[in-house]
């Protein structure tokens, strides 16, 4: 009896507290822990696409309430740390936004949980890095229920077409790398550097192609096409059949060139062992990697090189970070750099693209995320390739806190509030315009 009474009293205490404690402003209460907000009005010299210098009056932050944007990560990596720095320290103060970062959400249940929690925390938009196309529409609908925008890191595939064509007002579309272009980086490099007269044999790591990963499919297809072009060979099976095989397969061809496709997720158990075993046969001197796995296999490759006295050329998909830097800077026993070519991207640019979609919609310009047909669009960027340690060092230095590639200039150019009438097409052109040459030019200025 007494215990019931006590429990009830505590309950009422709770309710009472909440009734008294409610404020109208959702201002941050614990300063040291929450993201800071600040207001700023500034006159910034900006540049439009045709090069004229126009001074832009940034909208005063008092014009809109602080936008709260949730960032949903599937795994916590170097990239996510860069994103935190970029959004929280660079974007938030200037654009009067607040960012809320998630923990690793690996499955749909935890993604939904985060979205619900974000809604309770007062988020206005979600930038989602969890990309399972089959779930896109569902998540868009979930966000719609809570009155939040939804923008995802992905593109249009049959599985999520319904979401893009469904006319969802809260759906800001996708953002991703232009995959054909990424694939072509590999093709171009191979065609440029390989001599048909030399005999080579290829181990192609097809990664998640069998799972339908578009990016890796593009990359691997381009690799196979490049090899076919260089040697003028024809495969017995179609390229698609070969690269989407879920078990390792020989790409038998009429020129008898050794080409071995090795699928699998780098995180799966046994994957690395299988790959090492294939390398240790000593048959292959070209290792072409579609998934982001350069860091995982460095050791395996150098072991094979020293044991079998074989020089293996590595070409793969990569991201800026210590793994890649080490890979380029470590010389193998032949004095060559371990990795010959890697693709890279500028995280700040990708993040800025995502942010621009959200900001444009939140400031009342949904047209910035629509195609000409009125469907939701996908904003793309182009990856870059790196071929030498020096180039890598140079480029690594470009996208760091304080001197981001996607600086306020670039970001401002993607926002409709700065340029009324800005279309989605124009935004796309501007993101494509951010490339190695243009950045190099800007840095040297």
């Amino acid at each position, binding site marked *: 009896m007494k215990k019931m009474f006590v*429990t009830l009293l505590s309950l009422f205490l*709770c309710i009472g507290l909440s*009734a008294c404690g409610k404020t109208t402003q959702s201002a941050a209460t*614990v300063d040291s822990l929450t993201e800071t907000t600040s207001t700023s009005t500034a006159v910034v010299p900006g540049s439009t696409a045709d090069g004229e210098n126009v001074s832009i009056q940034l909208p005063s932050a008092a014009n809109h309430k602080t936008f709260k944007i949730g960032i949903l990560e599937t795994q916590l990596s170097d990239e996510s740390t860069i994103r935190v720095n970029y959004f929280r320290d660079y974007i938030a103060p200037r654009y009067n936004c607040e960012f809320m970062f998630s923990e690793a959400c690996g499955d749909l249940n935890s993604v939904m949980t985060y979205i*619900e929690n974000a809604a309770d925390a007062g988020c206005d938009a979600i930038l989602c890095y969890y990309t399972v196309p*089959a779930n896109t529409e569902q998540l868009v609908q979930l966000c719609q229920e809570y009155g939040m925008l939804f923008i995802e890191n992905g593109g249009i595939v049959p599985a999520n077409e319904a979401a893009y064509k469904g006319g969802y007002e809260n759906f800001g579309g996708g953002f991703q790398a232009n995959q054909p272009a990424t694939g072509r980086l590999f093709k171009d490099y191979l065609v440029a550097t390989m001599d048909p007269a030399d005999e080579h044999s290829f181990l192609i790591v097809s990664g998640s192609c069998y799972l339908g990963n578009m990016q890796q499919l593009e990359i691997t297809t381009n690799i196979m096409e490049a090899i076919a072009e260089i040697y003028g060979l024809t495969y017995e099976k179609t390229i698609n059949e070969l690269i989407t095989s879920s078990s390792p397969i020989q790409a038998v061809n009429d020129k008898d060139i050794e080409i071995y496709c090795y699928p699998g997720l780098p995180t799966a158990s046994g994957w690395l062992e299988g790959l090492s075993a294939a390398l240790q046969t000593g048959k292959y001197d070209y290792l072409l990697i579609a998934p982001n796995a350069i860091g995982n296999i460095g050791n395996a490759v150098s072991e094979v090189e020293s044991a079998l006295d074989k020089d293996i050329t590595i070409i793969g998909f990569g991201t800026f970070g210590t793994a890649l830097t080490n890979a380029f800077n470590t010389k193998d026993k032949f004095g060559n750099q371990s990795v010959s070519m890697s693709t890279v991207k500028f995280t700040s640019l990708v993040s800025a693209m995502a942010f621009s979609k959200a900001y444009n919609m939140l400031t009342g310009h949904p047209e910035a995320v629509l195609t000409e047909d009125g469907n939701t669009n996908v904003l793309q960027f182009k990856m870059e390739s790196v071929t030498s340690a020096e180039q890598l060092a140079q480029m690594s230095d470009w996208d760091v806190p304080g001197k981001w590639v996607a600086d306020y200039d670039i970001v401002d150019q993607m926002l409709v509030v700065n340029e009324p009438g800005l279309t989605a097409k124009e935004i796309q052109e501007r993101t494509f315009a951010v490339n190695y040459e243009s950045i190099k030019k800007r840095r040297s200025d």
Partner: protein
Amino acid sequence: MIRIAKKEKQKTPSQLGIGDRIEIIKSKRGFSLIFPLSMLLLLVTLFVILTGGDFFTLNVIKGIFNQSLIVGTMATAVSFIYTTGNVDISVGNVMGLSAVFGALSYRATGSMVLVIIVTLLCGVLFMMCNCALGIVFHIKSAMVAIVAMSVYNAFTEVLVGPDPIQVDYRLCKQLEGNFRYIAFLLYFGTCLLLYHKTAIGRKLRFIGGNALCANQTGINSAKSKITAYLFAGIGVGLAGVLQLLRTGNVAQSVGTGMGVDVMLATVLGGMSIFGGAKSNVYAGFIGAVTVTTLNKGFLMVGVSSTLIQGVRAIIFLLLVFMNSERQATLPSRQQF
């Protein structure tokens, strides 16, 4: 014959150490319910203060309840098994595989009713498999569970493939609202009654506390184990249904890691996973709600994502330390 006068009760001395006082409070009945609830209430109050009242809205409370349903149901189910002193970490995979079969039956027939029935039956079936292996071959539940985990996981991967199996999301959303609550409350209520108000729970606790003594008191341990696994199976199957209804699909990874989540929820709710006399059936749900409250609260307060894991770990440790029953004697049961 000998006559012996009734002895007088011992007088309590005025000096009692702090440790002794805590012992006395802990052994009062009702402690295992009041304490975790109070801790939960304290957490809620804390978050209410920190968020300036935003935490105590109906949506938030509903949200917490919704999010803790799946783990809460599973923890309730598994408490039957924990009570007997057995540990089964394959429950997550059982739930996943049951959900897979449910989704497959939807693909075949399109009927949600069938989905629910199939999922429940599968839950019971797989848990009974675990039970049978343990009883028939006299293998410890923990060992059976480890093997079962891999087996069920393999089945799930093969059956699901790279793309998740979809169940009509819209239909799920419709069912979600009332059906979920009713189903859960029905199950929870039944478990409460059967565990605490009938001989079932008492027998299970006795087996968990001292299996030899239970045997000598006429309690058939095999029969009780079967009962425990049966109720657990229903609960796990129900959790599978709830999972399906919530997400509208099953992916390969469904249910992985939930065995540990359930253990955490149980321990946070104040129950020992080694079972015995102080076990109950509601600790798991309280623990699940506590976890969800913490997660939501952290986000709403705005704890930095880099700190969240650390802060949460500290609070878990604190709660476990205060909540759990540290027996004077080490568990004498061999688990492996």
